[in-house]
């Protein structure tokens, strides 16, 4: 049985987790929405990493914004939060690896994280360290939800019969 104090702690964690969940949902929704208007551009942004052939990059670039928005909506609704957070973490790790790869190879690109991306023009310098730091910040959010997936106002909670 939980003591009153630990029940109280759990309730507090739930509120924090709820904030984190909504924060991460916002990140995905914004990232996806900014790319969804120009799917061809999103494909070119993936192509700029020079990892995949253009035909493959096009498919990834087209699917990615929709995936991001779907993840955002799932987190917003609070459906299978632990799994959604886990998938978020995996995606973020892939993005971080991609940016690190571009950095290591000396590519001059915009990461395309929150934009159509592409190669940078003359006089523009990439901000890889900043991009990676930001993604690690998001990764921390996802990690927190993996650790404490129980949140308020979630479908998970409603299905589990919680108040």
């Amino acid at each position, binding site marked *: 049985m939980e003591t009153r104090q630990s029940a109280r702690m759990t309730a507090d964690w739930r509120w924090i987790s709820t904030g984190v969940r909504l924060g991460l949902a916002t990140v995905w929704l914004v990232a996806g929405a900014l790319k969804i208007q120009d*799917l061809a*551009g999103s494909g070119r942004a993936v*192509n700029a990493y020079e990892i995949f052939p253009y*035909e493959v990059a096009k498919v990834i670039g087209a699917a*990615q914004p*929709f*995936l991001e928005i779907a*993840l955002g909506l799932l987190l917003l609704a609070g459906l299978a939060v632990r799994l959604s957070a886990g*998938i978020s973490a995996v995606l973020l790790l892939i993005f971080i690896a991609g940016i690190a790869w571009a950095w290591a190879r000396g590519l001059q690109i915009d990461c395309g994280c929150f934009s159509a991306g592409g190669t940078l023009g003359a006089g523009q310098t990439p901000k890889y360290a900043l991009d990676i730091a930001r993604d690690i910040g998001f990764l921390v959010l996802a990690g927190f939800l993996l650790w404490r997936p129980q949140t308020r106002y979630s*479908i998970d909670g409603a299905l589990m019969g919680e108040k």
Partner: protein
Amino acid sequence: MSGKKNLDRSKAKRVVQEQLARERRRRVTLWTSLGVVAVLVIAGLIGWSVAAGQENEKTAGLTTPSVAVDEGTAFAVGTGPVKVDIYEDFMCPVCGRFEASVQTTIDQLVADNKVTVQYHPIAILDHASSTEYSTRSAGASAAAAQGGKFAEYHRVLFANQPQEGGPGLDDAKLIELGRSVGLTDSAFAGAVDDGTYHAWATKVTGTAASRGVNSTPTVRVAGTDLEQRTPQGLIAAVEAAGA
């Protein structure tokens, strides 16, 4: 006696309840997880099909200008031995500055019959104007090429480059600029008005991307990316390639 019995019963009840709750959690976790996976797979497939649909729509009714070279994706200026490929977007400010800085150098290299310049007007900045100016201007430049005035027209387009984030130049202005370089026939104006070469601009952009051109300007001298996009850099690269 009866107190102990009650205690046992309530304990048993609690155990059963906990078991039921565990069972419920397991069921919920399983089904919500399956739901999440299904949603993500469907979202990805939607993205794929939407993008494919957009591409089909944008490349429907493809008309390739007959004067285009390099698999129908570029317009050649000059006949020299060293091939210079220039990928530009008429919306791109850096391209405008590049054009202004190398204009006389390119004229000289062409006049000396050292280079064949292949201009690839690509459209990667449609989002930078409210009217897809990149695609419209690239299409107009194809119409100008059909009228034999690509070099002149592409220059006047850069000289009149609109601001990023605005509406771009409208079709009437594109036709007027054509008239200013001698494109006075109805074929040019008609092609601009009808957007005859818009699908072609999309195709050229795709071809460029498949060649690893992800930004503008991209300049390749004899197939090698030009790092120093200055008159001196260009001359040096042409000399090196010609030697």
